[in-house]
């Protein structure tokens, strides 16, 4: 899952600036669980460690047979691994979800308005809400997108935000993923698996369904085509079978019933995009692309890319094809712009953010830079342009030498860095070697935005399977589990 950005935080030391004990999703206090977890807890009490382990094996076999794997390429041969999937669901009560949902809708609405503004009149920059150079110098800002019509002003059509639950129990947004977020197939596969593992508990818990996601995604994509043609042809564009998220691309194409194309299947002629079929060329209206901006068109972006189609961007500019998400959406999930999202929400919607941000220090501001430099051993420092856990310093787990190295880098190019406090992610019960133990988790819900904004009532819960670890990346020992969002009436028993 390449686009899953890391949540790399580490255990705080016995530091007074962050004394908090992580919030636990199941256990309220010693001996008592949250009401929405009582049914699951009762069910677990009836199962022996062997029975649980057996269920875990059944689930792993399900993933293996379905080919829900990522490939590890070696010198001689390649092996396929499954992304570990934990069988114990993470449960979120209905009332809590309503708040998350409202917060996500508000946030995506504001970010799309921001993108529409940035790529047209740039009123928000005139009004000085955020520094002009911070936006226009961001590597993800695409000048090519300037003054281009995007239907419904929906630039980011598929968004997968990373939420974390803070020690006080409140959810906060860690990152907005507006480029090509992945992981939705794991959300759906985990659900398919957990229905088999805990059928009884699932039935009585009142879990909201997520299986309409492919249908909603197709509707969203079609709504971007406007009314030019009665039956718009939608395709999914994948970098190909060697991409680590290929399974997901094929999965979505299959469930939407649309072709899964690669760059080599596409032909651009007279600013129209076609795919090569057995019946000759067939025109395409909407491309749900799972290829990064840089690679979609060698004539406009990276010239050495062979993953996209030459001339695709011009066809887009001409209005003959829709690219979803629009190129250039990355500027709105830039790590420095992130710090301004509450201000952006205020500016466009005149509302306070429902979901808070994590406190973020912008090193471009001299006062904040000196604070960061003085607290390098406590903070997490991130390079603005980088993602996936690169270019990062985790203060409490770093050496003096690493801190000194970062101090130099910060002073040399302060605008390239931000810093955040080290935050304890919440923990949820997981099955570890037959025992139920708490592990740190985050939450990635998926939001769709076309003519309307829709949040699927479910999410991918990523798990740091190593004890004490706060890293939920699949590449670093992370796994995932199903997320049950309960209907409003259930799970709110007081």
């Amino acid at each position, binding site marked *: 899952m390449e686009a899953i950005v890391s949540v790399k935080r580490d255990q705080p030391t016995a530091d007074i600036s962050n004394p908090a004990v992580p919030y636990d999703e199941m256990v309220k206090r010693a001996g008592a669980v949250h009401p929405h977890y009582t049914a699951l807890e009762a069910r677990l009490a009836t199962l022996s460690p062997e029975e649980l382990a057996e269920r875990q094996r059944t689930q792993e076999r399900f993933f293996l*047979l379905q080919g829900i794997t990522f490939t590890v390429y070696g010198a001689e041969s390649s092996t396929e691994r499954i992304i570990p999937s934990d069988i114990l669901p993470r449960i979120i009560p209905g009332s809590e979800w309503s708040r998350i949902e409202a917060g996500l809708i508000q946030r995506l609405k504001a970010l799309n308005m921001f993108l529409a503004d940035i790529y047209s009149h740039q009123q928000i920059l005139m009004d000085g809400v955020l520094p002009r150079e911070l936006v226009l110098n961001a590597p993800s800002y695409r000048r090519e997108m300037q003054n281009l019509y995007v239907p419904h002003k929906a630039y980011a059509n598929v968004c997968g935000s990373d939420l974390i639950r803070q020690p006080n129990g409140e959810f906060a947004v860690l990152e907005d993923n507006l480029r090509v977020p992945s992981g939705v197939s794991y959300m759906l596969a985990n659900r398919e698996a957990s229905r088999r593992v805990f059928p009884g508990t699932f039935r009585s818990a009142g879990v909201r369904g997520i299986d309409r996601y492919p249908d909603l995604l197709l509707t969203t994509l079609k709504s971007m085509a406007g009314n030019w043609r009665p039956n718009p042809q939608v395709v999914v564009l994948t970098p190909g079978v060697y991409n680590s998220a290929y399974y997901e691309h094929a999965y979505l194409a299959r469930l939407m019933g649309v072709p899964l194309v690669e760059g080599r299947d596409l032909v651009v002629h007279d600013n129209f995009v076609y795919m090569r079929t*057995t019946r000759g060329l067939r025109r395409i209206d909407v491309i749900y692309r799972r290829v990064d901006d840089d690679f979609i068109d060698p004539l406009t972006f990276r010239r050495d890319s062979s993953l996209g189609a030459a001339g695709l961007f011009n066809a887009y500019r001409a209005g003959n094809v829709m690219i979803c998400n629009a190129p250039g959406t990355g500027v709105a999930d830039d790590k420095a712009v992130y710090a301004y999202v509450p201000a952006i929400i205020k500016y466009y919607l005149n509302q306070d953010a429902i979901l808070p941000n994590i406190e973020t220090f912008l090193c471009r501001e001299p006062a904040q830079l000196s604070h960061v430099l003085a607290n390098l051993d406590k903070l997490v420092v991130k390079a603005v342009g980088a993602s996936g856990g690169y270019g990062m310093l985790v203060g409490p787990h770093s050496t003096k030498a690493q801190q000194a190295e970062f101090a130099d880098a910060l002073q040399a190019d302060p605008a390239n860095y931000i810093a955040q406090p080290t935050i304890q992610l919440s923990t949820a019960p997981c099955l570890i070697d037959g025992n139920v133990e708490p592990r740190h988790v985050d939450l990635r819900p998926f939001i769709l935005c076309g003519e309307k904004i829709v949040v699927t009532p479910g999410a991918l819960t990523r798990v740091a399977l190593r004890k004490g670890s706060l890293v939920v990346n699949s590449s670093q020992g992370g796994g995932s589990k199903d997320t049950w969002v309960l209907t409003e009436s259930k799970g709110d028993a007081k």
Partner: protein
Amino acid sequence: MMLARVADSLYWIGRYVERAEHMCRLSDVMLNATLDRSDAATQVARIALLAVGDTNVSKAQAPYEAALALTLERGDGGSIFSSIAHARENARQVRDQITTETWERLNIIYLRMNNPDAVKAFHDGSQVFLHDTIADLHLFKGAGDATMSHGEGWSFLQLGVHLERAQLIGSLLDVVFGERRRRKPLADHFALTSILRMSCALEPYLRVYTAELQPRHILNFLMLDEDFPRSIRFCTTQIESHLAAITRHAGLSANAGPERLAGRLKARLHFADMDELEAQGASAFLKTVLDDCWAIHRSLYDAFVAYSLEDRLPA
């Protein structure tokens, strides 16, 4: 309507799966020959190797090793492992086009072959290993038949299966009956049953010709039988009908290249005369059949997959 690349992949899944199944049978027959130290056994192993396209017949002295290599050698593009790996790689590329049930069957075979313990499993029970693989390949075809839509994609898959099968049986027959390579006439009962086993034809043959094993009947059966699914004639009928379906889907005229070639090939086998064939020699006829198969393969690409864009661009 489907992507040209997808059609191409489905076609190759069909070819690779068929090839793997055929190679499993050849391996199995070779292993069977190891139980018997007679001259006929060496002869059978040699035939199997030649039918695989391996001209190093000295391997026939060690049929067990040859069968192991043919089954699991990763470096050899013609091994069963390679065919399964290629079939599955193609299936992964068109994962959205084949049903989950079909995919699962192929994936299971691949996972077993790719398992580090595969060599051990082969040593523990080589015939069981091959038998299971063949059975799983049948399940794959059955799952496809029962769950996939029998539309254009299915026709491409079937086209791959039957073109490959016609070519494999054709090559086998050429090795056995072609006068170019024949050393001494096959008369040994063991050798003759082995030939039938290699093409999974023993029982169906017995039902038609009884236990009277005669080279002429075997050639007739494997080449010209109307109903046996591994006879070349049966294959050409399938090729012709699936090509007709594809041409219809694509909205091309029936006079287009591939369909004309397929019709001609079908007619060749339909109206072949065994006496005439024997008089002229089987080799010449088989060569025509194999050449026709290649011509169909090429014209298929020209018409549906690697066509020139200039003819197809909107005016």
